[in-house]
């Protein structure tokens, strides 16, 4: 009975696997200085951007792909990737939502993204990135009233070049790592947020990323600056069509929090994970880092990672300002042949800095789930404190959970706590729930949700509901 159920659901797991037929302006595959110049030209960028990209490219040529992560995948042919693909009607950029291609809007509607008025009701301002370019940013006017800048990265380069030049690459330098360097050279769009001094951003900001075109890499870049005493909560969601070949997603996110500022960054990542045999799926190689530059600043990462064939990401916080706070809450789920190597780095530099890490890894099917984390306390960070809890939950006998925690304390006043546990969904728990009348798949989802509760509690309300549903879908057919 259970087996039949598995067969039924395996093929309907991924609901976002459709492709939108749309005319695009697409480069030929391959990477060269010329391609980078063309991207920069298409986007009409100032000279400093082009030069930065070229420096990144030159540096990238000297690098080799990293292999330290606990993931296994064939070498990527970087000359076989398309580095720029944009919906054609997009060329001059839409002035308002009315000018956005209705097919695109339809796509976003299918994804359940409220681009129109529904969005305002939901109180969420949305920037949507389709393949390489940003297609719509809603509620600009309302945000502008509050002085908040929320726009596509391309627009920020045109309208706020000084801010971009001042902060770009200051948290994740273009020399940072193989994928971040590649991103610096070729990134085509992304989101930009600036919250001025003392402003509490009046709504949740949100970006949806969608990879549509085949053979296309998506390289977006997000830069969020929270000026002194400001607050912003930012949500990010991602989906992609089902395709047999792997697609590369190498994004960079930089967060900067000045004195007394707070940034809350939440991600629900649901890129296409590949099929049950591991064919296709997104390679999600992402560099996310925040800098608590100011005293009493706070950066909090919450991520729900259920998609992608391979996930390689470590949203981190550099705790520079005294009394600053870094948080990382993560649920990573790997089913079928998915692999995830994810975790965080908390770098304590300032005095009385505090960090919290709660990581929940769930492995099902043949999934491999790795937590990799670094807590580093520098000599300057007197009375730094960290609390880490990383738990793994295994469903079935063919999956794996791995934990690599690194702790470096160079200050004797540091207090570091680390707790970890690995458990298997017990037959006892399942039987108990079923004896009380719950269907097997409901029982699994109940147990998994309980396991993830501490992380879900950190998500904004509407995302928490979405995250729970997503876990249910991703786990369908994992019992047997």
């Amino acid at each position, binding site marked *: *009975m259970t087996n039949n159920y598995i067969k039924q659901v395996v093929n309907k797991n991924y609901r976002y696997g459709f492709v939108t037929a749309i005319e695009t302006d697409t480069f030929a595959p391959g990477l060269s200085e010329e391609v980078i110049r063309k991207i920069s030209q298409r986007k009409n960028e100032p000279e400093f951007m082009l030069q930065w990209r070229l420096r990144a490219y030159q540096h990238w040529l000297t690098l080799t792909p990293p292999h330290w992560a606990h993931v296994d995948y064939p070498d990527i042919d970087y000359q076989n990737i398309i580095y720029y693909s944009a919906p054609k009607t997009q060329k001059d950029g839409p002035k308002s939502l009315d000018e956005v291609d209705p097919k695109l809007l339809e796509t976003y509607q299918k994804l359940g993204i409220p681009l129109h008025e529904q969005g305002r009701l939901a109180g969420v301002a949305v920037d949507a990135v389709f393949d390489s370019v940003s297609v719509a940013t809603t509620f600009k006017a309302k945000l502008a009233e509050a002085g908040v800048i929320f726009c596509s990265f391309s627009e920020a380069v045109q309208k706020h070049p000084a801010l971009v030049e001042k902060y770009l690459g200051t948290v994740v330098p273009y020399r940072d790592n193989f994928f971040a360097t590649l991103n610096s050279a070729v990134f085509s769009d992304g989101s930009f947020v600036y919250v001025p001094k003392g402003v509490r951003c009046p709504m949740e900001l949100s970006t949806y990323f969608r990879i549509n075109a085949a053979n296309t890499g998506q390289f977006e870049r997000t830069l969020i600056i929270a000026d002194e005493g400001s607050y912003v909560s930012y949500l990010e969601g991602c989906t992609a069509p089902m395709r047999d070949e792997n697609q590369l997603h190498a994004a960079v996110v930089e967060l900067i929090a000045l004195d007394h500022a707070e940034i809350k960054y939440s991600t629900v990542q649901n890129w296409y994970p590949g099929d049950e045999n591991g064919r296709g799926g997104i390679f999600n190689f992402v560099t996310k880092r925040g800098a608590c530059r100011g005293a009493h600043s706070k950066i909090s990462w919450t991520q729900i990672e259920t998609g992608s064939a391979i996930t390689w990401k470590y949203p981190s916080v550099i705790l520079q300002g005294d009394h600053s706070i870094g948080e990382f809450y993560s649920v990573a789920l790997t089913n079928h042949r998915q692999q995830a190597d994810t975790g965080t780095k908390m770098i304590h530099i300032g005095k009385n800095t505090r960090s919290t890490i709660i990581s929940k890894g769930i492995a099902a099917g043949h999934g491999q789930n790795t937590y990799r984390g670094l807590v580093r306390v520098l000599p300057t960070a007197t009375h730094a404190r960290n609390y880490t809890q990383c738990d793994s939950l295994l469903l079935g006998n063919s999956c794996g959970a791995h934990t690599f925690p690194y702790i470096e304390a160079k200050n004797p006043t540091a207090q570091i706590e680390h707790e970890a546990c690995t458990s298997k969904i*017990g*037959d*006892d*728990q399942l*039987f*108990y*729930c*079923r*004896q*009380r*009348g*719950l*269907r*097997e798949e*409901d029982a699994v989802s*109940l*147990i998994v*949700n*309980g*396991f*993830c*509760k*501490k992380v879900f509690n950190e998500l904004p309300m509407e995302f928490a509901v979405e995250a729970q549903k997503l876990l249910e879908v991703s786990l369908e057919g994992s019992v047997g």
Partner: protein
Amino acid sequence: MLQIKNLHASIQDEKQKTKCILRGINLQINPGEVHAIMGPNGSGKSTFANILAGREEYQVTEGSALLDNQDLFALEPEQRAAAGLFLAFQYPVEIPGVNNMYFLKAAVNSIRKQRQLPPLDAMDFLTLVKTKMKEVNMDEKFLSRAVNEGFSGGEKKRNEVLQMLMLEPRLAILDETDSGLDVDALQAVAKGVNSLRNPQRSFIVVTHYQRLLNYIIPDRVHVMVRGQIIKSGGKELALEIEEKGYGWLEKEAQA
């Protein structure tokens, strides 16, 4: 109501060796009756309870079990629950992070759904659960705690009885619900069970000791040894066992 005929069951141990646990159980329980099953450790009492509820690691090799003329062994555990079978666990399981009230509500409504009844809404549910908690002397704070997590032995058993009161089964099986309980908890559990007793509902009370049977008076007492019921009688049989142990029965059975 419950008819068990010639039930044989076995389990595979770690070396894949088949071990026979039940060797031909016959039992007939009529509506409204309370049957106690007693016996020494390892006699198969708990296995019997778990097999009726649908625990998967046991294989039924022979025999049948009908609940209201439905073949129990053709049903999944959750379908047996919907058919009205409830097992109060000897070791209630902890489910971290899952709110006790949420769990209860999910269970009640899942069973209602299987019986094609509309779900209880939040208000009706809350009113009902608060009434039932009073019956087993449970503090309302247990509703917001995770299922059984950090509960004491007595609290877990009360929680089992609370679940039973909420699910209102046709047949409730209590698997050593008395083990590890102090007198207060024992009385609370017995009170909960007795409040459910009616001419349509039956109980199987699995226990080592006669003590619980002072509070829940059985109609029949069966003694199980090595996977077989070797003697059945009225409530006085329990008192006899309390006095003399099981040894004389085993000898009698062998003779």
